[in-house]
Structures are given as structure tokens and as C-alpha cells.
């Protein structure tokens, strides 16, 4: 019994540190000026992940409304006090922003994608932790 407990503890020690950090968030959705998608203080036109130590904010923009028009997305991260990231125009584009490159490495935060102006945007919005 004691041997089994030791093995279980060893297995937990090997598995838990990775599973506690690993995370993936994805949503396919429209982002319009009226979208409210789980963000904090800066939420109009935004979709956000839950809280985690996300290291990558990733988006693929595939559609717009009105069709044929361009919209602008802010692609990055959000904390209780700040959003930070890069702008990309879509559809027909992708963005990837890494947290360590925007001075947010190791920060507990949300992945944040915010429609900024122009046409509403449809796409795949992802986060990796």
C-alpha cells in the first residue's frame, strides 16, 4: 500500500506541473462592436480567454461584414489594468503575439482580441499556455 502511495505521488509530481501550466483556448466567432466575450474592463467588441499564464495570442481572420470590407483587430493580452498587442487588418490575415515580446511574460492574464474599427470580423481566436 505504501509502495502504491509512493508511486502515485511520483506520478502526480511528474504530471501535475505540466498540466497546471498547459492550456489552450479557441473560439470561432464574429467580433462586432457589440460583442461582449468574457473580457474585463475593456470589453466592447472583444473576445477573451479565461485566466491563465498564456504565452501566445493567435488569430486567423477569415471573413468580414460587410463582405469585401476590411476590419481592424487588436491582437494581444488583457489584465485587470491593461490591454496590449498589435493591430492587424482582415480578413485574409493572421496575427501571433508572444507575451514575452510585449513585456507580459509570466503574467496571469487573458488572451484578448478586440475589434477596433471598420467591418466586423469573423475568425478563429486562440490562446496557448
Amino acid at each position, binding site marked *: 500500500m505504501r509502495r502504491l502511495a509512493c508511486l502515485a505521488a511520483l506520478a502526480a509530481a511528474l504530471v501535475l506541473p505540466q498540466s497546471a501550466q498547459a492550456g489552450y483556448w479557441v473560439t470561432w466567432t464574429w467580433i462586432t462592436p457589440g460583442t461582449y466575450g468574457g473580457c474585463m474592463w475593456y470589453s466592447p467588441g472583444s473576445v477573451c480567454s479565461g485566466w491563465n499564464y498564456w504565452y501566445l495570442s493567435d488569430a486567423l481572420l477569415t471573413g468580414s461584414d460587410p463582405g469585401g470590407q476590411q476590419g481592424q483587430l487588436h491582437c494581444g493580452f488583457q489584465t485587470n489594468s491593461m490591454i496590449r498587442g498589435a493591430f492587424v487588418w482582415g480578413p485574409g490575415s493572421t496575427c*501571433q503575439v508572444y507575451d514575452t515580446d*510585449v513585456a507580459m511574460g509570466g503574467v496571469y492574464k487573458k488572451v484578448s482580441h478586440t475589434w477596433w474599427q471598420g467591418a466586423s470580423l469573423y475568425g478563429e481566436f486562440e490562446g496557448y499556455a
Partner: protein
Amino acid sequence: MNGASTSQTRSLPRLGGAVAAFLVSAAFLVWFGQSRPAEATSTGTAISNAGVPVAISPQALNALQSAEAKSGLRLGPPTRLAVRNGRALYRINGVNGRCFAAGKSEAANAPSFGVLLCSQSDTAARQQLVDLSIYDLTRGGEGIRIHRLEGVAADGVASVGILGDAGAIIARVPVTRNIYSSPTLGDVAATGVVALNSHGGVLERLSYQR
């Protein structure tokens, strides 16, 4: 990018640097040789700076494969356009689009991308500026601010102007070999950037005011 590729990113840096670089370069050559066109073609607005070829890091390979898988872009190998202010800027041409990236320059010989923006040909064809800058908003703050200014400009863009609250140009940054970057403009309130020709005429205005 899937779970497998994510774990690849995490495990490879644990190998010795030389071994990892060799393995990734070999993997990239196989990947590039199997699925790439014989010669990547530049698309969109002309950018004469072709850059210099660079090796590719596991992280950059992962980022490019992810962009390809999602968007259907068929990309060639990255080239380094410049190193400015501790940052390296990269170009990745493709047959149906292109990408630009920036990252810390200490990784310039094995690029590690901090920001990667890709666009298909029809979008790229309209771009005078590919703004790789980072912008932020703080809660209770007055508006958007530039955290870091850098990007790629098309031929004919002589400088990039920073737009203030009233929409007027409050600062100018020269464009050299298609690159603009400023070590001093970080954390400045701004509502956008404009591409300017040698006479100060506006070629493109990117407004970030909501």
C-alpha cells in the same frame, strides 16, 4: 498549431543548442522542400529590401507552420531585413501572401518571433505600412499608447509620422531600407501612424482611434 507542435516548442530548447539548431534546420529544409514552391514570389506593394537568409529556430518554425496551416499561405524561408534598436525584423514571402515578423535581436541568427503578421496577396497589395508596433491601453488612461514602434514600409515611404490626439503628426521616424523603428518613442500617446513620402505627403494613414 496543435498540441504536438506546442510540445515540440517546449522540448526542443532543452537539447543542446547546436543539436537543436541542426535538427530544426534539417526539419525546415524537408518541410520547405516538400511543400514550398521552387522559388517564393514577392507579392503586394513593393519592398526592395529582400533581407538576408537566416537559420530558423524551433519557435519560428512552429509559428510559420501554424500560420500556413491556418491561412493556407504557402510561405518560403524567412530573411532578416534589419536589426535596429535591439530588435530584428524579418520577411517571409509566399506565393499567395506574405508575413513580417519582429523579435529580439539576440536571436537574430536563429529568429525567434515575438510578433508575426501574415496577409494574403489581396490584403498585402494595399499595404504601404506593415505596422509591427505594440500598442496598449491602461485602465483609467486617456487613450491608446505606443509601447514599441517598429515596422516595414513600402518603397517610396520616406518616413513614418506618429499621430497625436488631434490627428496631427507629433513626431516623425525615418524609414531606412524599408524599416522604421524608434528606441525613444515607446510609451507615447498616439492615435495612429502615417506613411509619408519624401515631400511629406501622406501615402497611407493607419488610424487606431476608436
